[in-house]
C-alpha cells in the first residue's frame, strides 16, 4: 500500500465560526482517522522521533498499539514517559521536536504524532475506568513549588515512586500557565482539571493560595519535614519595551490580558473581572503567547487584531499551527514593524473628559533584516522616515518575561544567573542541597514540554538523592 504523502487533516471548527467562540479549535481525530494516520508510521529502527521529544515518549511503540486498535495500551506506553499527554498533544511544538525528526518527513509530511497523542489521551479520558492504584508510601516527603507543567510532572513521577508529595500553588487554581496563560480554545480547562485530578488520585496534595517566598519560605518547607524541594515557579514579571505611553489605559501585558480572560473568566458574558473588549487591538510580539492574546482579543469581539512583529514570518517563534490558525481567523500580521510610541487621547479643553488617558493609536516604524545576531537570527534594523500610526485602542505587549524575585530574595544561598534565572546542574539541582528547579524559573519563558522534561529530570534526581540518604 502506498504511503499517503500528507498527514490526515485535523478536523477543526470553521474559522468564521470559531473566531467568535471560546470552544476548542481543533476537534481531534476520530478512531478511523487515528488508525489511518498511525498506518503512516514506518516504525523505523533508529526511532529518531523519540530523541526529538524532551520527555522521550516511546513514539513508535504507542503508534504500533494504535495500529493494533489497542488504544488503552497506547496510553500506557505514553504514560511511561509523560504525565500530561492530553496537554502535550495539544500544545507541544511538534514540528520542532518529534515530527521534525520523523523519517517519513524526509520525503513527505511527517507522521501526525501530536494529533495521535491527543487522540490516545482523549480516548483514555473519555473511556477511563477509575482503577488507579496508589503506590505504597516510601516515607519520604517532597514539596513542589508551583503547579504548572514542570511541577505537575515532577509531582506525578515522584508520587508514582511512592513519595508523599505536596504541591504549593500561589493562585487559587492549580495548573499554572496551563490555566492562566493558554486559552480555553487551545487547551480546555476541563482537561487540565482532569490531569490534576489524576495526580490527586495518586495521593498528591495540592495546597492553593500559598506563595512560596512569602507565605512560607524554602527553608520553612524543610522545617516542615520535607526532605527535598522542587521549584517550578514559572516565569515572572512581564517585560515592556520602554517606549512612551506604555502606562496608558488600554495597554496590557499579555500575562495580564490572558490572566483576566483565562483564569478570571473575563471572556464570559457577565464576568466579575473586567477586560477591554472589542475595538482595534495590536499585539506586540510573535511568540505563542502573542498568538494566544491576539486570538483571545478577536474572540472577545475586536473588529481588527494586529500582530506587530519586528522580524519576518520566517523568524516568527510561534508554533506553526497557531500562526496558521491565526491567519485563517483573520488576524492581520504587520511584520517587519516595530512600535516606537503609544499615543493617548487627551482633550485639551476638558481635563475630566473620560476618554483622556486611553490609547488612541500606536506609532510604528518599518524594519528590514540586517546582519545575523549572536543566535544567528537576522537583526531587524529600522528604515529611516518610515514611521506611521496604527489606529488602535488596545495594545497588548507580549515580549517575554523576567524571572520572579520572590523565591531568590528569600532563599539564602540560591544562586541565579545574570537574567535572574535559577542556576541548576544537569540533574536540576540548584546551589542549595536538596533544592531542585526547572521550567521557566530556570530557563526564562520556554515551552510546556521543556518544562515537563525538566520536572521529569528533577524527579529522577530527587529519587536518587533521597533513596541514597
Amino acid at each position, binding site marked *: 500500500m502506498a504511503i499517503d504523502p500528507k498527514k490526515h487533516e485535523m478536523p477543526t471548527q470553521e474559522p468564521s465560526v470559531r473566531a467568535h467562540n471560546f470552544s476548542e479549535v481543533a476537534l481531534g481525530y476520530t478512531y478511523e482517522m487515528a488508525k489511518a494516520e498511525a498506518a503512516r508510521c514506518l516504525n523505523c529502527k533508529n526511532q529518531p522521533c523519540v530523541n526529538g521529544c524532551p520527555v522521550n515518549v516511546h513514539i513508535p511503540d504507542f503508534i504500533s498499539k494504535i495500529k493494533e486498535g489497542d488504544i488503552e495500551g497506547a496510553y500506557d506506553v505514553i504514560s511511561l514517559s509523560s504525565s500530561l499527554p492530553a496537554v502535550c498533544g495539544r500544545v507541544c511544538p511538534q514540528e520542532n521536536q518529534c515530527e521534525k525528526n520523523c523519517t517519513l518527513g524526509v520525503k513527505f509530511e511527517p507522521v501526525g504524532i501530536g494529533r495521535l497523542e491527543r487522540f490516545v489521551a482523549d480516548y483514555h479520558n473519555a473511556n477511563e475506568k477509575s482503577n488507579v492504584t496508589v503506590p505504597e508510601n516510601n516515607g519520604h516527603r517532597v514539596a513542589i513549588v508551583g503547579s504548572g507543567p514542570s511541577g505537575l510532572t515532577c509531582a506525578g513521577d515522584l508520587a508514582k515512586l511512592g513519595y508523599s508529595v505536596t504541591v504549593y500553588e*500561589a*493562585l*487559587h487554581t492549580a495548573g499554572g500557565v496551563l490555566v*492562566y496563560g493558554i486559552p480555553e480554545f487551545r487547551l480546555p480547562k476541563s482537561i487540565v482539571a482532569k490531569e490534576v485530578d489524576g495526580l490527586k488520585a495518586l495521593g498528591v496534595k495540592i495546597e*492553593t*493560595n*500559598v*506563595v512560596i517566598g*512569602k*507565605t*512560607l519560605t524554602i527553608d520553612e518547607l524543610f522545617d516542615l519535614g520535607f526532605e527535598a524541594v522542587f521549584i517550578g515557579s*514559572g*516565569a*515572572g*514579571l*512581564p517585560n*515592556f519595551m*520602554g517606549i512612551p505611553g*506604555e*502606562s*496608558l*489605559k*488600554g495597554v*496590557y*501585558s499579555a*500575562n*495580564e490580558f490572558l*490572566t*483576566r480572560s483565562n*483564569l*478570571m*473568566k473575563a471572556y464570559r458574558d457577565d464576568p*466579575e*473581572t*473586567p477586560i477591554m473588549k472589542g475595538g482595534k487591538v495590536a499585539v506586540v510580539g510573535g511568540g505563542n503567547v502573542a498568538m494566544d492574546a491576539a486570538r483571545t482579543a478577536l474572540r472577545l469581539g475586536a473588529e481588527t487584531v494586529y500582530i506587530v512583529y519586528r522580524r519576518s514570518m520566517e523568524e516568527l517563534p510561534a508554533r506553526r499551527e497557531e500562526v496558521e490558525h491565526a491567519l485563517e481567523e483573520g488576524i492581520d500580521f504587520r511584520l517587519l514593524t516595530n512600535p516606537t510610541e503609544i499615543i493617548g487621547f487627551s482633550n485639551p479643553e476638558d481635563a475630566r473628559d*473620560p476618554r*483622556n*488617558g486611553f490609547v488612541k493609536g500606536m506609532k510604528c516604524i518599518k524594519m528590514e533584516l540586517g546582519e545575523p545576531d549572536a543566535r544567528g537570527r537576522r537583526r531587524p534594523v529600522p528604515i529611516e522616515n518610515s514611521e506611521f500610526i496604527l489606529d488602535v485602542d488596545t495594545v497588548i505587549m507580549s515580549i517575554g518575561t523576567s524571572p*520572579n*524575585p*520572590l523565591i531568590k530574595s528569600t532563599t539564602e544561598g540560591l544562586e541565579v544567573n545574570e537574567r535572574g534565572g535559577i542556576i541548576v546542574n544537569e540533574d536540576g539541582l540548584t546551589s542549595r542541597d536538596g533544592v531542585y528547579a526547572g521550567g521557566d524559573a530556570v530557563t526564562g519563558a520556554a515551552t510546556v514540554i521543556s518544562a515537563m522534561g525538566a520536572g521529569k529530570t528533577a524527579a529522577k534526581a530527587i529519587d536518587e538523592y533521597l533513596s541514597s540518604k
Partner: protein
Amino acid sequence: MYKIVTKKCLNPTVTQMEIEAPLVARKARPGQFIILRVHDEGERIPLTVAGTDAERGTVKIIFQIVGATTKLLGEKNENEYISDFVGPLGEATHTEGIKNVCIVGGGVGCAIAMPVAEEFHKLGAKVTSIIGFRSRDLLILEDEFASCSDSLTIMTDDGSYGREGNVTVPLREMLESGEKFDMIITIGPLVMMKFVTLTAKPYGVPVTVSMNPIMIDGTGMCGGCRLTLNVDGKKITKFACVDGPDFNGYEVDFDEAMSRGRMYADFERHAYEATCNLFGKEKN
C-alpha cells in the same frame, strides 16, 4: 475556604473582619497586603493587612464598600466563609532608623495607617498622627490612633469633628514650626498622598506613600499594578505587588496612577449597581 471569625461595622460604609488564615497571620507585617476572593468565580481584590493575631491565627482586614466585590464581602457574616485568602504580599513598611515619624491617613486608608503607627509606637519612635475624613460619620479608629500616637490631629472636610480642612493644613503648620520628622508616611486617596508629598517637599522631609493600584495575581506575574517612578530624571517601571506597595513619594507619577486607577470606572459602576440590585431584590 477561609472563615470570617469576627465582623464589625466601623461606619456605614467601612467594615472590619478577622479572617482565619494561620499561615498569613504568622507572617504578615504592617504595610503588607493580602488578596482575597469572596466566592468561586469571583474577582481577586487586594486589601492591606490591618492587624494580625498569630495565636488565634487571624488576619484583620478593613474595607470600604466601593464596588461589587466589597459589597459581596460586606454581606457576609461571622462564621461564614470566603473562598480564597492569600498573603502576605508586598514588602513590609521599612522602620529602621526612624525615631520621629508622622503618619498621615485619609479615609479608609487610616485602616492601613493604624498598624503602621502601632508598629512605630512599639519600636519606641515618636508618632505624630494626622487623620482626615469627609465628615464625622466616616471617622474610624480614633481610639486606636489615640493610644499609639504621641500627638493626634483629626481633620474633617466639613468641620463636623476635629478641625475643618484637609490633612495638609496641620502638616504644613508642624513643618513650618520646625518639627523635624525623619519620615512622613502617608496612606489614603492618591490625590491626598500627592498633596502630602508636595507639602513636605520644601522642608526636605522624606515621604513614603502606600500605593494601591489595580491588581490581579499580586505575586509578580501579570504586571497590571505597574507604576512609573521618576528616578534622577529617568522613568522606571515598578510593580506595586513585589516592589511595593510602599514607594518614595517624590518619585511616584501620581497623575498616571490616578488615570490608571480609573481604567474600569464604567465597568465597576455597572457591576456595583447590578450587585446592589441583586441584594435589593433578595431583601424585598
